[in-house]
């Protein structure tokens, strides 16, 4: 990593450094932004986990008084809100940010400062939401905030307003990230990388970005409407004056259902990358897996009212959504079968990433099956609002998304840090998490069917729920231990001097063709791509029976180019990909950057972070008084103006 030459600092000078604390504040490098997202989201994961442990502590025994009703309601609301908006979404953004440009052979995203801005919006929104604990109490309306119990007469105090505004702020971050990823994926692919040669992770990230693009505005409108109800006497959800609380539900779930696919598709993408590498076989049915992901993205818009079966929409609506919900299981199932077929006949290397990927398949299947049973609408009248539903979504979101994300963490840790996480601690982490997770959420299927409703801070003895609730609480403690194992593993690894080889897993995709950690500019020369898994095809070719043949070092696999290989491709290095020499006239002047070949990268900038300081201030203004908002608006405007006026990249003195 280059250290820039430091000129004497001028006040308000554009930052130039690439090391030190302030370099993290001003970074526009997608890799560093990815690390920021990842570390911040992991901290929120710990906080959300502690909230869950407190919830489970209260529910371990009947008629417990560890927490009051009010405390419990705040904790479960914050647990859900944190895990959905401040953990899983930003973790996906972490992986997407770090990997997408590397996987498509690009040097950065399309809008580097907008990228940084998205992170700062996430951080400031998350912090704003948590300020509520200090300012009169956290929101207690559930992560789904149903009106009218979240309107003024029924939720006095400012907690709900913190929730509304916090989510609007983080929503801005999600929207900017989505725009960035779409343009990056469409426009910045390396030559030869057609859409159907992109890694599945990039595809899933693209689908997720479109889902975000269309879903975020809907919830933003709903959040504003509720804010206006609470603060300006609007009547959107006020049934006394013609408002309809069900409108909130429609809008929330029109966002909310695509949201759950936003939560799971990145992890599905990660699993689609891990399984082929650790099976030493290509992904089975690449095109089908991609199209299933797209189908899920589309069909996800047509199932939202399956969260509302008991609302009284009528048998016709309920039947239509029952059908659409059942059929969205088809593309999901197709993916599961393709993943299993990827491993079948392979040579399975059972390292920690593979454990988590296989665990994903097993756990997500359970969650998917219980999900299909929710579509049995007359029985959903029994299942809905019970712990059976809690079991379902934890199986898909924890057993699915979180397992997949941890698998990705183990898989790409050597890429990001140049070090391999320990296998012993990794497997301990996996087994503790697997056992703890199943002990916690498995019994909840039974508890729900035995009549325990969700979102209840207390239950009576004699209901038959005591034993399984205690088991679930014990399971949650085991989960906590597993997370501890992960933290110890990371700490040990970062402290050790052992370096990982550049391609420790013998992987398939472009990010493994460059050093670990990658230089700021990613690729010294932009690669030319000839096939899916292009990097792999520079290492191996196939004989007539489809068996792998290792290529001599420096060989390029012409066969995989499908007739598009050009003669005159330069002979690559061991494990490197064929590259294109950037024509001379496109080189910028080199000015002692220390970068390779005079590559000009976008310069760091404080403006995204500066602008985002405005968000929580405007938020306080919306709750406490306009003068806060005015100060916040100044920060926002100053930040945005400064950003608009400064060029993307500066010449260094």
């Amino acid at each position, binding site marked *: 990593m280059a250290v820039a030459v430091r000129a004497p600092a001028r006040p308000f000078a554009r930052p130039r450094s690439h090391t030190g604390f302030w370099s993290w504040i001003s970074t526009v490098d997608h890799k560093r932004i990815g690390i920021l997202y990842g570390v911040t989201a992991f901290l929120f994961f710990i906080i959300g986990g502690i909230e869950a442990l407190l919830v489970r502590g209260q529910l371990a025994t009947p008629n417990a008084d560890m927490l009051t009703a009010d405390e419990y309601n705040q904790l479960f609301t914050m647990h859900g809100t944190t895990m959905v908006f401040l953990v899983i979404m930003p973790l996906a953004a972490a992986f997407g940010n770090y990997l997408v440009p590397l996987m498509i052979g690009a040097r950065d995203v399309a809008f580097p400062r907008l990228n940084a801005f998205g992170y700062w919006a996430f951080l400031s929104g998350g912090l704003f939401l948590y300020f509520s604990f200090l300012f009169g109490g956290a929101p207690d309306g559930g992560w789904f905030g149903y009106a009218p119990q979240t309107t003024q007469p029924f939720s006095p105090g400012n907690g709900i307003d913190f929730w509304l505004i916090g989510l609007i702020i983080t929503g801005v971050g999600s929207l900017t990230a989505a725009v960035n990823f779409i343009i990056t994926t469409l*426009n910045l692919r390396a030559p030869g990388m057609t859409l159907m040669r992109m890694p599945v992770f990039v595809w899933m990230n693209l689908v997720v970005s479109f889902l975000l693009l269309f879903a975020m505005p809907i919830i933003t409108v709903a959040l504003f409407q509720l804010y*206006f109800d609470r603060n300006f006497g609007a009547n959107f959800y006020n049934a006394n004056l013609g408002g309809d609380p069900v409108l909130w539900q429609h809008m929330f779930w029109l966002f909310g259902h695509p949201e759950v696919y936003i939560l799971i598709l990145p992890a599905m993408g990660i699993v689609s990358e891990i399984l082929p590498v650790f099976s030493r076989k290509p992904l089975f049915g690449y095109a089908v897996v991609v199209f299933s992901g797209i189908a899920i993205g589309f069909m996800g818009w047509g199932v939202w009212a399956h969260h509302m079966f008991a609302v009284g929409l009528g048998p016709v609506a309920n039947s239509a959504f029952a059908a659409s919900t059942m059929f969205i299981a088809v593309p999901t199932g197709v993916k599961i079968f393709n993943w299993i077929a990827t491993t079948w006949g392979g040579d399975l290397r059972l390292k920690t990433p593979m454990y988590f990927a296989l665990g994903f398949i097993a756990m997500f299947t359970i969650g998917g099956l219980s999900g299909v049973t929710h579509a049995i609408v007359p029985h959903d009248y029994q299942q809905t609002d019970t712990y059976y539903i809690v079991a379902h979504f934890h199986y898909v979101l924890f057993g699915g998304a979180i397992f997949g994300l941890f698998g990705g963490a183990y898989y790409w840790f050597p890429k990001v840090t140049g070090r391999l996480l320990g296998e012993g601690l990794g497997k301990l982490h996996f087994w503790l998490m697997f056992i703890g997770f199943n002990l916690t959420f498995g019994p909840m299927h039974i508890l729900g069917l035995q009549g325990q409703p969700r979102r209840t801070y207390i239950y009576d003895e004699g209901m038959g729920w005591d034993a399984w609730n205690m088991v679930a609480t014990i399971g949650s403690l085991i989960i906590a231990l597993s997370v501890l194992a992960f933290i110890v593993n990371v700490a040990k690894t970062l402290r050790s001097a052992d370096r990982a080889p550049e391609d420790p897993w013998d992987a398939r995709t472009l990010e493994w063709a460059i050093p670990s950690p990658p230089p700021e500019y990613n690729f010294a020369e932009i690669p030319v791509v000839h096939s899916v898994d292009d990097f792999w095809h520079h290492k191996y070719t196939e004989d007539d029976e489809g068996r792998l043949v290792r290529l001599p070092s420096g060989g390029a696999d012409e066969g995989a180019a499908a007739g598009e290989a050009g003669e*005159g491709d330069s002979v690559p290095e061991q494990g490197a990909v064929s590259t294109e020499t950037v024509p001379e006239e496109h080189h910028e002047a080199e000015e002692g950057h220390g970068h390779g070949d005079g590559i000009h990268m976008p310069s760091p900038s404080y403006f995204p972070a500066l602008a985002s300081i405005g968000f929580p201030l405007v938020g306080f203004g919306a709750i406490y008084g306009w003068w806060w908002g005015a100060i916040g608006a100044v920060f926002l405007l100053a930040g945005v103006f400064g950003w608009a006026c400064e060029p993307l990249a500066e010449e260094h003195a």
Partner: protein
Amino acid sequence: MTHALAAPPAHGAAPGDHDYAVTGINSKKLGMWAFLASECLFFGALISTYLLYRTRGPVGQRPGDVYDIPYTSVSSFVLLMSSLTMVLALAAIQRGDHRRLRIWLLATALLGTVFIGGQVYEFTVFVHEGLNISSSVSATSFFVLTGFHGVHVTVGILWLLSLIGMSLRGLIPQERNLEIEIAGLYWHFVDIVWIIIFTVVYLVPN
């Protein structure tokens, strides 16, 4: 050196160049289109809410009871004309006429301001006649829908004014006309949304 490409890059830009674009459409422009697609859902949600609620509320408390269609038609015409001036501004910078660029941008901003002024006046009249955000659910949805549109117009006006400022400082040479084009895309979108709002809210009878 030959290489396979999905599509020829824009302007012959090479990969790694800052205006490299596989789709052939400049990234900033594509980004604005993506953002506008998102805005369609935003206004779609607000318009849907309005359509749901337009007939609810006590008689005399609905926006339809206090509209002044001729007045709002004039206001709409003003906004429509501002799209014309925006087009003229883009044409000016594309042929390198910086003075005309600033004149037409200023005209656009002024017409937009007249529109906003008209909206503000209209709202004060409604409030005087007893129609405000808490009167009824139809009034609520009317004010929030048109209010958000007004905020979007205002943001556009500020954007146009800053473009004028940047042009005065020489920061918008002819080659950077894309900046104006992108602002134009946003401005036209806001105008089209108004046409939809005007039709759905004012013209279509309850």
